[in-house]
């Protein structure tokens, strides 16, 4: 039976500075707390910058408005990619790594000064890249900066600073865990959430090294020191960074799914072995996925593309499909053990839908899996990529994964970080109840609008597709769906940022008194420790509903995937 990490005495010493959390009974190192707050604040700042850019570029692609001139469209699209895909995500993950390696282990932060160095490097890098892109017209080179498209040298330098900063926190994460283990802060295995974060951290290590392999030569090339840089090789290295970076987001998001499920419904993982195995599959196979971006590149063989794009044998996809069962199943078992065990979906009807952590997690899982995951595997199929590469179907896919999935999960988690770490009362609770639904609904339309536009051949990163002359008129409708979705999602984004700012900037410091924010005064996290194997194994508590849900998912997956082969079969013969 699961227990809280033992509360071994904190070594008394001048450097130690901690508080005990009244809700979780965990110890919170004050150094860690300040680092978490700083990184989380920067994450939200970057989300705000990227969000403003998002609104403006969406209103440009929506043909009715076609707001920005071309140069500003490409400039803000570059910023949007960097601020969202890199800065917002990574700052939030850094907060997560400081949190996971100390608070969740009852441990101290072993290297706070290095933590601040990391934060400063990342902040300087993040602000610098924003400045360079905004003020240097030659640096609108998109997040990918494909050589020989040349940006200002400071552009590459800011990437490098940011990446070095992030790498330092990743190393601190491992160091903190080693110190915690040595000092006996926890016994036995790491909690599953920390295990998931560690998966993210290991992937991040080689991701950032590959980022260096792409960006350091590009930096030297932009300075004129390096004369020749092969564009094909750069693409390979860049995606060695760019793709696994998204898998860092994936692993961190799944870890947060487990955390939110436990915090809001009191789950205990059905089988630790099953869940951990799924993370291990990410670890070993996900780095192959950089091939997804090179499937229609010259110079690479079919065998190389097929083995890499399929993560050897879709083994990383298998990992995600395992989580796709194990999380809903754990929620079902926890709910059934509370007595909601009539029929297949009684447990779901009686779930805490008003609790922002629960609703954002559920929306995140559904949108990530049903939209992001299914479209991702499909467009990542070697041949099918030929009818999708660089069309709007691509951003349609990753707005399903990193935005509807990861961003929504991070947003939901923030609402709990505010009382537990910032120690401020969460304000505008009625907004927080609605926000995940509004943001999620907007993102559904964004993804669907993009995917259906892409199916009609609309290119991504393109200011005005009507130049092409051949796109059908229905594109105006699908781009309008995308635009309307973007407006709704913007409202959701504004609500999120307002809730966060109002909560942390107003009101006195207040120790948290409750785990749940809206739906009750009970503490699901502590209740989960009372869920014994015996209760979980009772016949009426079996996750039959979750099994039905994953099979429904598989049917949708198969329909979408096979339809795309059919579409591919209709194009010109090509080899």
């Amino acid at each position, binding site marked *: 039976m699961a227990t809280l990490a033992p509360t071994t005495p904190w070594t008394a010493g001048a450097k130690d500075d901690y508080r005990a959390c009244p809700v979780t009974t965990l110890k919170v190192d004050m150094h860690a707390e300040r680092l978490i707050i700083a990184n989380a604040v920067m994450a939200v700042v970057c989300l705000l910058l990227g969000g403003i850019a998002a609104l403006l570029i969406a209103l440009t692609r929506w043909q009715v408005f076609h707001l920005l001139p071309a140069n500003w469209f490409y400039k803000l699209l570059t910023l949007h990619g960097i601020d969202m895909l890199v800065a917002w995500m990574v700052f939030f993950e850094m907060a997560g790594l400081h949190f996971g390696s100390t608070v969740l282990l009852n441990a101290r932060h072993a290297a706070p000064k290095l933590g601040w160095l990391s934060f400063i490097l990342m902040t300087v890098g993040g602000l610098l890249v924003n400045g360079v892109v905004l003020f240097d017209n030659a640096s609108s080179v998109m997040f990918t900066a494909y050589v020989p498209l040349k940006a200002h040298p400071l552009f590459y330098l800011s990437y490098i600073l940011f990446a070095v900063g992030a790498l330092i926190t990743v190393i601190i994460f491992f160091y903190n865990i080693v110190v915690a283990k040595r000092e006996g802060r926890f016994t036995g*295995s790491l909690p599953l959430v920390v295990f998931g974060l560690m998966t993210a951290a290991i992937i991040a290590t080689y991701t950032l090294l590959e980022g260096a392999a792409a960006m350091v030569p590009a930096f030297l090339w932009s300075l004129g020191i390096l004369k020749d840089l092969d564009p094909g090789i750069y693409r390979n290295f860049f995606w060695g960074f760019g793709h696994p970076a998204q898998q860092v987001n994936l692993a961190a998001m799944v870890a947060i799914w487990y955390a939110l499920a436990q915090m809001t419904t009191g789950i205990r993982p059905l089988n630790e072995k099953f869940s951990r195995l799924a993370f291990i599959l990410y670890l070993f196979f996900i780095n192959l996925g950089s091939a997804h971006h090179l499937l229609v590149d010259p110079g690479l063989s079919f065998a190389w593309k097929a083995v890499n794009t399929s993560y050897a044998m879709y083994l990383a996809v298998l990992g995600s499909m395992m989580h796709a069962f194990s999380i809903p199943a754990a929620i079902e078992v926890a709910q059934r053990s509370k007595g909601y065990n009539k029929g297949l979906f009684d447990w779901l009807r009686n779930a805490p839908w008003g609790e922002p952590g629960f609703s954002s997690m559920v929306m995140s899982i559904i949108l990530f899996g049903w939209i992001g995951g299914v479209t991702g595997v499909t467009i990542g*199929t070697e041949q099918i990529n030929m009818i999708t590469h660089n069309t709007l179907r691509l951003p349609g896919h990753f707005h399903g994964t990193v935005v509807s999935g990861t961003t929504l999960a991070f947003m939901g988690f923030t609402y709990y970080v505010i009382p537990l770490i910032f120690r401020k009362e969460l304000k505008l609770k009625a907004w927080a109840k609605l926000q995940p639904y509004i943001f999620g609904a907007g993102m559904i339309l964004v993804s669907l609008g993009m995917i259906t536009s892409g199916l009609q051949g609309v290119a991504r990163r393109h200011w005005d597709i009507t130049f092409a002359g051949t796109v059908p008129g229905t594109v105006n409708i699908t781009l309008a769906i995308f635009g309307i979705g973007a407006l709704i999602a913007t409202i959701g984004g504004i609500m999120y940022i307002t809730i966060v700012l109002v909560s942390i900037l107003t009101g006195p410091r207040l120790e948290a008194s409750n785990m749940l924010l809206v739906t009750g005064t009970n503490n699901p996290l502590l209740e989960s420790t009372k869920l014994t194997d015996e209760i979980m194994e009772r016949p009426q508590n079996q996750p039959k509903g979750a099994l039905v849900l994953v099979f429904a998912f598989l049917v949708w997956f198969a329909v979408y995937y096979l339809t795309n082969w059919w579409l591919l079969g209709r*194009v010109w013969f*090509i080899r």
Partner: protein
Amino acid sequence: MLAPERNWWKPMGRMEKTWLTVAFVWCVFLTIMMPLWYYMGKNNVPTETYRTTPADYGTKVNDFVAQYQTDTDAATGMPIVAAPPGSDVYIRAMKWQWFPVLQLVKGETYRLHLSSMDLGHGFSLQPVNINLQVVPGYDYVATIVPTSSGDFTIVCNEFCDVGHHTMTGKIIVVDK
């Protein structure tokens, strides 16, 4: 979020096993589809590639146009080139044009060469919806058979600086 019990290495339940098996079988199916299509399908990603330089490739394209030009496109002034079926046909990508206009015959085979004189570009044939990456220094050869006739547009779908969206080209396919 909590530490697991000391020994968490336990056999999986019946439902986990069921789902794991089904999911794994699905993954195997996904894997098999690619080689299956590679050997049996008619729409595969080209792999034939040669090293080239912008200068060499430019010369080849000019020779090709000089040899087979039949007409000039009224709207753009671009040469229309109709090479005999089975031959090598060339398209040159550069900021911000696809050069020249190709005229092909439906149902015939061509070896289509793609390369760039400057930046990376994206060859996106619409409304057929075939998309290939064009990388400078690489001569990418696609063996194609047009299966429909009419005027087709080449859109650039890799960002290539501020005039990117104006970069369009044309392929004309005539019936036999």
